[in-house]
């Protein structure tokens, strides 16, 4: 057993969570990219002869109060929810990583100021602040991305800052300095690539959270706006029919859970794949 455990700690191991997670995420990405190939119906087509039909042969997930096919709507919504997962996180990741790298590398007054700003931002309850900013800017996906970019960079910045402070003490950083490389080249060509692993792992978890957050905001009416098909919006649509037509809300929820599940498994699998981190 201990031999197995030793192998498990080695880098590059493809673990079961990695496989399952990557598989689920890949399926959703393909579905999101080519919804037309998978959806049996037009997601927006009304069918007054098939209102609120229970799941059956013609409509595997049933139909909603306008006779729209739920399976097709869930499939088309995947496109939007994957977009939410990426756009809600990517700007925070870019900005936070660069800022954190600079802070960790240079330290000094710049780092002190950024750290104070982070202290101020983290003292606000995250979700409440996001909801507040979106409510101010007006409901909608674009404003949701703005709000998340404005707040969420903090997590990436803290993570990168700590990583760079660790990396810059290692021998190869000193070697690069002795070779006479410029600061920014050392930082972005040598240190940052070595510090990206925890960022990438956190990004997976963060995307899983973004899917949950995006659908929650869609449900609250602050995210994607109807008639756009988004999983949270679909659940909100079905809420009033839940006693009579449970399928309207239940299937989009299953979609959210599977994508979130896939992303967080992928994150776990990547931790194993990149090898257990050594702390000095």
């Amino acid at each position, binding site marked *: 057993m201990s031999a197995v455990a030793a192998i498990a700690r080695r880098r590059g191991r493809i673990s079961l969570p990695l496989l399952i997670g990557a598989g689920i995420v890949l399926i959703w990405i393909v579905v999101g990219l080519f919804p037309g190939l998978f959806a049996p119906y037009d997601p927006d087509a009304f069918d007054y002869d098939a209102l609120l039909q229970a799941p059956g042969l013609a409509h595997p997930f049933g139909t909603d109060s306008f006779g729209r096919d739920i399976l097709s709507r869930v499939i088309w919504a995947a496109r939007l929810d994957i977009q939410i997962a990426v756009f809600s996180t990517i700007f925070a990741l870019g900005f936070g990583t660069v800022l954190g790298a600079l802070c960790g590398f240079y330290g000094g007054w710049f780092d002190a100021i950024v750290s104070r700003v982070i202290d101020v931002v983290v003292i606000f*309850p995250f979700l409440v602040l*996001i909801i*507040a900013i979106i409510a101010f800017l007006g409901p909608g996906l674009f404003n949701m991305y703005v709000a998340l970019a404005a707040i969420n960079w903090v997590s990436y910045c803290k993570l990168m800052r700590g990583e760079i402070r660790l990396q810059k003490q290692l021998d190869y950083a000193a070697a690069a300095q002795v070779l006479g490389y410029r600061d920014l080249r050392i930082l972005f060509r040598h240190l940052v690539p070595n510090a990206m692993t925890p960022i990438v792992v956190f990004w997976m978890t963060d995307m899983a959270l973004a899917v949950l957050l995006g659908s929650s905001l869609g449900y*609250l009416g602050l995210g994607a706006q109807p008639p756009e098909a988004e999983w949270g919006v679909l659940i909100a649509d079905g809420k009033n029919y839940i006693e009579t037509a449970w399928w309207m809300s239940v299937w989009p*929820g299953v979609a959210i859970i599977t994508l*979130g599940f896939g992303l967080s*498994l992928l994150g776990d699998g990547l931790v194993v794949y990149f090898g257990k981190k050594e702390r000095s």
Partner: protein
Amino acid sequence: MPSGNLVLRRVVQLVPTLFFALLLLFVMVRLLPGGPATAALGDRGTDADIARIEASYGLNRSIAEQFLSYLWQIAHGDLGVSYSLKVPVTELVLQRLPVTLTLTACGSVLALAIAVPLAALAASRRDRTTDLILRGLFQLGLSSPVFYIGILLLTLVAAKTGLFPVGGYGSGFLDNLHHLVLPSFALALNFAAVLFRNLRSAMIEAMDADYVTFAIARGLSPRVVLFGHVLRNALISTVTLFGLNVGWLIGGAVITESVFAIPGVGRLMIDSIFARDYPVIQGLLLVLVLTVSVVFLLTDIVEGLLDPRLNR
């Protein structure tokens, strides 16, 4: 025991952070688009009307001037009067905040009650079927949105069995708790999953530690080792996690409130933002920020109590 000095230092560190948080909040509220007069009058308001109303709220003064007088107000324990509801903000906050905080507290306690025993069970059966099943279930719990769990609980439990009310809030302590059972459960699930994952690894790490091997070698019973040594050490990460997640929990409580139609701060905040009711928005967020910082402070102190090495 953390020295009084350390606690004092933490409190002093908190003051500038709170000050800047308040400043940020104050400026943000005024710089973001819209204003209380435009929100109230809509398209019908003439420029003169808007200017008159804003002047009556003192919004025609410079932001610096407004901020100083707001600080003066707060220093006297006055959060101002709501523009749209014409009620003192303190009154509104005292009415709504306890509901949200009770929900947050119930959710946290429930999460602990679910996660701690199951994490201990999973850690002691590491990599066996029980462990794998529990890990899979909690991984699913981690990916389930609060509002979805809430809707399912409302339909499957409240409506079908009639054991619990279908939303709303009660009157009197026990009735309130009865109304909060399902919402707390919806709120608890995510946090329980976070706790479970971390506690399980913390316990496994502790089980492999030398002091536990030594404790077993001394002939202590497994129960004593589990509760006295392993759990005690895992407790530190629980406290840390609570501190890290309290912001999420409060946010989750706000979403839960909307699903179960509970009159907490959530609805009030969104309504007052749409009405650009600055005193209410500022008051609510300020009190929430205070709550979070008090929790940060307490977790720091408790961590120090549990692990004296952290006090340095």
